[in-house]
């Protein structure tokens, strides 16, 4: 493999990692945009999505790419319950309550998952495992192409939902001005529950695509990605969906570039170096607006 081939391969791994980050951060941003709620337990929804997909796959052998829809639906339900019984009672009572609530949820979900599924590392074998498509000097595994296609499809679906449906427009209105939305008759509590559920379902999609790529998983898998998702939404701009997409891609590329050029231990650190630079130069993030 020549230098250009290596460079392209690193870019490709960055794009793949970026896809996972985009889905996770977009979900987080959807929730923050509408509810202005800080949920540090968002990575646990990625973990639950991964386990639900894996469990259905182990029990039925159905193609995991098809299970992604079931997993997303399940997480909409779980997210709705969490919003209704955990976040809604403390909504508007202060960020500290939200932070401690979400930290509590992290422990509950992690230990609950460990009780149900044990905390052994597990893996799922994709039906397309081992199939690679040569593109120039690159080895391109089919699974990674599918992951990128699924990410793009989910984002297109989200775009259409937010722009072409009444509920989507109500979510945008609530995001822009919550009191104004209430004044024009939008049931913002209903919008909250839908937003939270959809945000969780995007995390479930990220979890599913994580495991079909052949990465191992256990109940603690969500912690680090959740921290990175927060860095991404601050980088892209709080509440900005395009910001989450661009931020996710940047993060994936930066991490893999740093691991190649500086060494693997810089993989996580580089995300926060970029975050600090962006906050110093542009405190609202790349796509954020003043006041958010």
């Amino acid at each position, binding site marked *: 493999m020549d230098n250009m081939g290596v460079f392209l391969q690193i870019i490709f791994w960055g794009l793949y990692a970026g896809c996972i980050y985009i889905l996770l951060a977009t979900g987080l941003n959807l929730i923050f945009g509408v509810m202005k709620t800080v949920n540090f337990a968002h990575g646990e929804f990625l973990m639950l999505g991964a386990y639900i997909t894996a469990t259905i796959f182990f029990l039925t052998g159905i193609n995991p790419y098809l299970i992604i829809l079931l997993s997303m639906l399940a997480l909409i339900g779980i997210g709705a319950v969490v919003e209704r019984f955990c976040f809604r009672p403390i909504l508007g009572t202060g960020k500290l309550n939200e932070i401690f609530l979400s930290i509590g949820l992290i422990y509950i979900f992690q230990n609950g998952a460990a009780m149900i599924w044990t905390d052994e590392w597990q893996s799922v074998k994709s039906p397309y495992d*081992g199939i690679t498509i040569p593109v120039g000097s690159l080895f391109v595994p089919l699974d990674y192409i599918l992951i990128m296609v699924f990410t793009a499809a989910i984002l297109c679906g989200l775009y259409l939902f937010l722009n072409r449906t009444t509920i989507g427009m109500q979510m945008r209105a609530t995001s822009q001005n919550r009191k104004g939305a209430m004044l024009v008759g939008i049931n913002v509590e209903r919008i909250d529950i839908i937003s939270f559920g959809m945000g969780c379902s995007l995390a479930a999609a990220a979890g599913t695509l994580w495991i079909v790529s052949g990465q191992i998983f256990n109940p603690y898998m969500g912690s680090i990605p959740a921290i990175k998702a927060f860095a991404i939404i601050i980088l892209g701009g709080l509440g900005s969906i395009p910001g989450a997409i661009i931020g996710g891609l940047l993060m994936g590329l930066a991490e893999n570039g740093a691991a190649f050029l500086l060494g693997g231990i810089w993989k996580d650190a580089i995300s926060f170096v970029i975050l600090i630079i962006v906050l110093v130069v542009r405190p609202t993030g790349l796509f954020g607006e003043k006041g958010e």
Partner: protein
Amino acid sequence: MKYPVIFIAILLITAFFAGCTQQQATAAPGVIKIGVIASLTGPASNVGTNMWQSAQVAADKVNADGGVTLKDGSKAQLKLIVGDDESTQQGGQKAATKLITDDKVDILVGGYSSAVTSAYEQTIAEYKIPYIVTGASSPIITHRTDIDTSYIFHHCPTTDTYGQYTTMFIDQVVRPAVNKKLGASADRPFRLALLYQDTAFGKGIQTAVNDTIVKNNLKIILISQQSFRMGESDFRTQLTAIKATNPDAVYLGAFPNEGAPIITQARRDIGLNTIFLNAENNDNAQFYKDVGQYGEGAIIESRFSPYTAPAGAVADSQNMFKQSYFTRFGAYPDMMGASTYEGVFIAAKAIANAGTTDKATVRQALVDLKMPQIIEVMKDQTISFSPDFRESTFDLWMEQLSYNATLGETRPVIVWPDNLKTTDFTLPSWYMAGSSS
């Protein structure tokens, strides 16, 4: 009126529970309390659970054989108390402190991950309690000079030892085989890449390989040395960088939950079809399952395996231990389980030799210990601790994996050294050497 009543109630409840704690802290006559520090939760829980279960099998055996005879002729039974280090340094600190101060154990056994174990060595030094470390393999465990490690005894090979063994195996076995395949001259330098966890464990392997090459003037060049964060799951970028350097083999300083995905991603996603050499902690049933077909041809440095045993004296005792473990837990023990199993026997023997549970006397008994090997092959067939750093010395071996399509898992065979091997090392048909020059 209401508040004084509540206050008194709280005092009474506190006093009741304080009494309970005191009662628990007092050792029952005829009982030796052994604290086992293991990672029951967190990323290393697979290995940690195996260590804890192996300790239970050992204690059952000691107790079934009558227990430990003390100086006054009385018999004492072993009672194990586990401390979960949660695979973290903070968790390790909590577990060690609780076992020593609350449970008042007589001796400690266990400890996995050098980073975790070294974090609570200060507590061991402070309370001066004998500790037989059976899982953390960095030499810093007993070599460090910033604290008093005189109560710590190391019953597992250090990264210095197995890094050296693996490098010598590469030089004596893999290098000639690759040269033969390439039709190259015998003095062609071997192109070795390292991919290691950025911790004391991984860096220990890196240092050992570098030192062994220099010290023995080996014809091995390190063409790439890549690191990764502990617990990482995506290694594709580092593997892409390694592949670009055309290695003849890749030595991994990784835990089982890292080693299996590294090999899978390397062969499946990167097309890096080479020999992967793994450290001994990967000799674990979960690893054989997770690595699957991609583990074909890989090497594990080892001293105990769930699926094979060396030719010679310890085969029967290893099989008995595996059978006892399987009967009780429905699975097979791994390497860290084996040394923890032995750790309990060593603790019992030291207390028997000391005739008391007095910490300083037991420590001296460990210093003076000479007992026959149990299930692992020891130098001179004897378990004893070196006078300088209190390390026991093992005879190690190298295993090569082959894929069993029926099981959907790999299985090992011992290929080195000559006195322990059951077959010869072979290069797989798909193997791609770095370059012929």
